[in-house]
């Protein structure tokens, strides 16, 4: 295993320094953006209490692209909802270190698996929705919304309604709507899961590009290991019920990521194996 060392629970892939790319890579010592400390969450359901998350500890650095991978029902989405303050944790705390920025309208934004765009508004009005809520003036918000539609290459569709778009286009509008608010952290909840493979790969390439342009801190939840490895600086593996952090992998692979890169493939295999072992264990637990 050349260039692949496993240190304790952290797998580190060394980047060959001569393969520096046009994209900026993240310096090691940036300050933390988000700290998740000892967070637990339990839900009451008809079948009793379900512990969705158990004592999660994570630190996310500024500008970092973090992917969270885990079997379905492992509390990944719950974690995002907690970070987005749509729900409150039972125990522990989540601290966001904000920076001053006049253009910042919202701290935490989620892009949902289904795009959650509003059918009664046009594409442009959807992207400008949050800006309007925050009281931005008409001309200003239209301009800003158009900028972000340009970024996701959908400015031609500004005056369409949502049902006129394909699944991939909807997710790009949702991404533009989120980015227009200039959030501290962008939370993505399996945003490409409902799309076909081709669209999925295109969008993930586009997302990587947009991330490198905007330098956003992104937490990306998925159950697809390949997607996580292709996108993330860091992959965090969750176990199922209750969700706990199992392993963490740091990926210093060159960007833009090449799908043919053997290191990337090796990494996918490594994480997939760990993932399968975990999934198998949780299935055995459930049946046994």
């Amino acid at each position: 295993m050349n260039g692949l060392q496993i240190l304790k629970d952290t797998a580190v892939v060394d980047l060959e320094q001569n393969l520096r790319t046009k994209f900026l890579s993240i310096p090691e010592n940036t300050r933390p953006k988000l700290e998740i400390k000892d967070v637990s969450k339990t839900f009451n359901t008809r079948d009793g209490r379900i512990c969705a998350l158990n004592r999660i500890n994570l630190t996310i650095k500024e500008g970092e692209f973090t992917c969270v991978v885990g079997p379905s029902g492992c509390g990944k989405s719950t974690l995002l909802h907690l970070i987005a303050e749509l729900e409150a944790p039972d125990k522990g705390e989540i601290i966001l270190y904000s920076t001053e920025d006049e253009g910042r309208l919202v701290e935490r934004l989620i892009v949902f698996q289904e795009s959650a765009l509003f059918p009664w508004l046009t594409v442009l009005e959807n992207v400008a929705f949050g800006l309007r809520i925050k009281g931005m003036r008409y001309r200003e918000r239209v301009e800003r919304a158009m900028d972000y539609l340009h970024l996701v290459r959908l400015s031609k569709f500004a005056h369409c309604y949502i049902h006129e778009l394909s699944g991939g286009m909807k997710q790009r509008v949702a991404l533009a709507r989120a980015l227009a608010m200039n959030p501290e952290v962008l939370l993505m909840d399996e945003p490409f899961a409902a799309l076909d493979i081709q669209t999925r790969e295109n969008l993930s390439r586009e997302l990587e590009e947009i991330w490198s342009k905007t330098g956003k801190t992104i937490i990306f939840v998925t159950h697809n290991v390949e997607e996580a490895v292709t996108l993330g600086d860091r992959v965090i593996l969750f176990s199922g019920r209750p969700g706990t952090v199992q392993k963490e992998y740091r990926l210093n692979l060159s960007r833009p990521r090449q799908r043919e890169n053997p290191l990337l493939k090796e990494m996918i295999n490594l994480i997939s194996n760990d993932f399968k072992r975990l999934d198998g264990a949780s299935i055995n637990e459930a049946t046994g």
Partner: protein
Amino acid sequence: MGSTAKKGGFFLLLILTWYALAHSGWWPEYMLPAPEAVCRNLVNGIGSGRYLMAIAVSIRRILLGYLISLGVGIPLGMLTGRLKWLDETVGSLLLGFQALPSIAWLPLSLLWFGLSEKAILFVVIMGALLSITLATNSGVKNVPPLYIRAGKNLGAKGKTLFTQVILPAAFPSIVIGMKQGWSFAWRSLMAGELLFINLGLGHLLMIGRELNDMAQVIAVMFILIVIGLLFDRLLFSRLEAVVRRRWGFDQV
């Protein structure tokens, strides 16, 4: 052949058949008047102002009753849709009342308000209010939680969340309720006017019957159809078109 031509041909054929049957002498005129007799009646009635007066009175009654129903029904539906305790109490009461045909309120209304405009207004409101309230209620309740989460996430809360997310999301359902409410109100009004109230189109229908004047009966029925179609075209078709265009329901 275009659809307009088809329609035109069909109605022409219908009128010709009617004409032939009326002049065949098989039925007395008080059972089947000729089309030209109905036409003459319509022209005279409108010319003398008698029909216009009745139209004005009926439309005034239904508009007043309908607007009150909208003004009360939409907020009531929104409240019962959002507040669980209100839905479990008032909501279930309204659901029970919907099982009651609105004209069944007439005796109660007469005893409460006497033979007055108020009595007919009450019946019209009872016809429209429940459909509007219940449709708004279910529209608000069935807003996908995802929209609400997304709205909150984008910074909408409280009143803003309600007016900018929940209400527009419930709009298609509210339009259905408005349309149904209108047709219930129209039926209740006609039933009420037929039974007791002076003036109005229903009353003209009854006078036609009492005088064995079938031409008048049919003429007034025409007017009722025209008014119904007019409101449908002017108001509800447009609202439905907005919904279809935005939500894309016509592609299903």
